[in-house]
């Protein structure tokens, strides 16, 4: 279930700018994930073999995972890799499918823009109260701000999907 096969592949990023953005975001996520893995391993080995755990590995893991998701969400959305129930999708074709993709893109735009705004408010609140992690005193506001940014980029990705759906609607005869 972690990788539901899609009935139709998402629109491939044909525009060079999008392809580059996708590569950059993917690489950043890859580095974060590798760091998360290495950090956990060093922490456990340090704790058992040298009685010296890595300070703050716990909270770094938490923040790293949030960052990975914020950075990757635009790619997942752009590629249309979100899980669906997948019941009648294969049955929809041509214009109906284009209209469906249009509606999905619209919902994604509204939803992600809204979440981006709410995440920005959360970042402001963290900033105002000076919220930080307990061991390393890492401020939470920048991570939440990254979330607002990531969701804003995801909104852009959904706009690309909207444009693609509109173009398909225009191409397909009714």
């Amino acid at each position: 279930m972690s990788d539901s096969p899609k009935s139709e592949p998402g629109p491939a990023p044909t525009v060079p700018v999008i392809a580059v953005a996708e590569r950059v975001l993917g690489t950043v996520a890859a580095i974060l994930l590798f760091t998360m893995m290495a950090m956990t391993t060093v922490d456990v080995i340090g704790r058992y073999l040298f009685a010296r755990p890595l300070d703050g590995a716990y909270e770094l893991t938490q923040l790293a995972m949030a960052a990975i998701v914020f950075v990757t969400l635009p790619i997942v959305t752009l590629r249309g890799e979100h899980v669906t129930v997948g019941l009648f999708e294969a049955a929809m074709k041509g214009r109906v499918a284009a209209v469906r993709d249009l509606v999905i893109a619209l919902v994604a735009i509204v939803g992600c823009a809204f979440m981006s705004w709410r995440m920005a408010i959360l970042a402001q609140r963290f900033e105002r109260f000076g919220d930080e992690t307990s061991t390393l005193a890492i401020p939470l506001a920048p991570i939440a701000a990254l979330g607002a940014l990531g969701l804003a980029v995801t909104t852009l990705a959904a706009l690309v999907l909207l444009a693609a759906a509109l173009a398909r609607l225009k191409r397909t005869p009714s």
Partner: protein
Amino acid sequence: MIAALSSFVVLFGLLFLGLPLAFALGLVGYVAFGLVVGFTPAGAMAAQVAWDTLTSYSLSVLPLFVLMGNLVNHAGLSRDLYAASNAFVGHRRGGLAMATIIACGGFAAVCGSSLATAATMATIALPSMRRFGYAEALSTGSVAAGGTLGILIPPSVIMVIYGTMTETSIGQLFVAGILPGTLGILLYVLAVLTVVTIDPKAGPAGPRLSWGARFRALRDVWAILGLFILVIGGIYLGVFTPTEAAGIGAAGAFVIALLRGSLTFKTLVGVLAETARTTAMLLAVLVGALIFSNFINVAGLPEAIVSGIRALDVPPLGVILLLLCFYLVLGCVFDALAMILLTIPVFFPLVQGLGFDPVWFGIVVVVVVEISLITPPIGMNLFVIRSVLKDVPMTTIYRGIVPFIVADIVRLAIIVLIPAFVLFLPSQMAP
């Protein structure tokens, strides 16, 4: 109550239209919460749920275990696993199908996803069984069924999600999956035996290998066994938390892939980025589900159902049986993840209120979800097979899966009637 039920109707409508789960759940949950409590608190709740979920330490097992599975698969160990199982049972009648089941079980021990297990084994085992003249029904059935073991034999994505939604120990759930998973392998092998006893032509015997060749084949899979023992053994003995185990497991898989020379810098970045995408997708769905589940709780649906069932005076086991029937029917048309996310917020309080063990119910739900993956007409694993073997008619795949569904029902009955079978291992764990 009315509000909650109508929200389900709207939600199903959106899902059937093809709206992604994450958006549909989040949208309906937010709007409905807003209508009941007010839109300002609803917005704040949505952001808080997103933040809490994405920064949840216990959920960080997801990316790490997914990474472990992807790395092991990338290292080509799944192929070795099949070759090794084949070396031991391939000379028997139906042996290749049995080897498929066993290899699926082995791969499941390092992979937490049923679709990934089925997809991996499909590309390896199906061509091989075709070469030996296996009946398509038997070969496709064994891969589809074996693949379901991915979410029962730890690690398991579904268990992590169940554990998060119900605040049940993920470590205990993992350990509880070991015996039912092993039973699953045995019963599936029995199903294969039954099929070839009735129709010997369905699974002709392969060549017999010498013991030397067998142990040489085994040499390549020690790594998988070692990883599994390290990861699950570590959780069992309380040496590390599930997240730490997942990190160690991923690092171990990384070292194995490096040693086997199958990893370049470019492919490593590819595997990592793919894992990150799977993580983002899973967590987005989970955020949506938790927003929706907050609404369900505010609307008081679980309490209403609990008191409704109490009033009916049905015996607790009767309630469980009703739930199972509901799940089996729902499973014919619903995807595994969707089923868990939609039903757990409503059913879990009920089951807990009746005094059942949360770990036991988690395993029951996972087994039911496994069945849903292979029940026609909509079973995700069947579609995975179909996408690999495009020339096999869907009806053949449907026919082939029947003996395995029977095996699953037997296993479900054992698990439901003998809770100790599930709960014995977790009860022995270090606290």
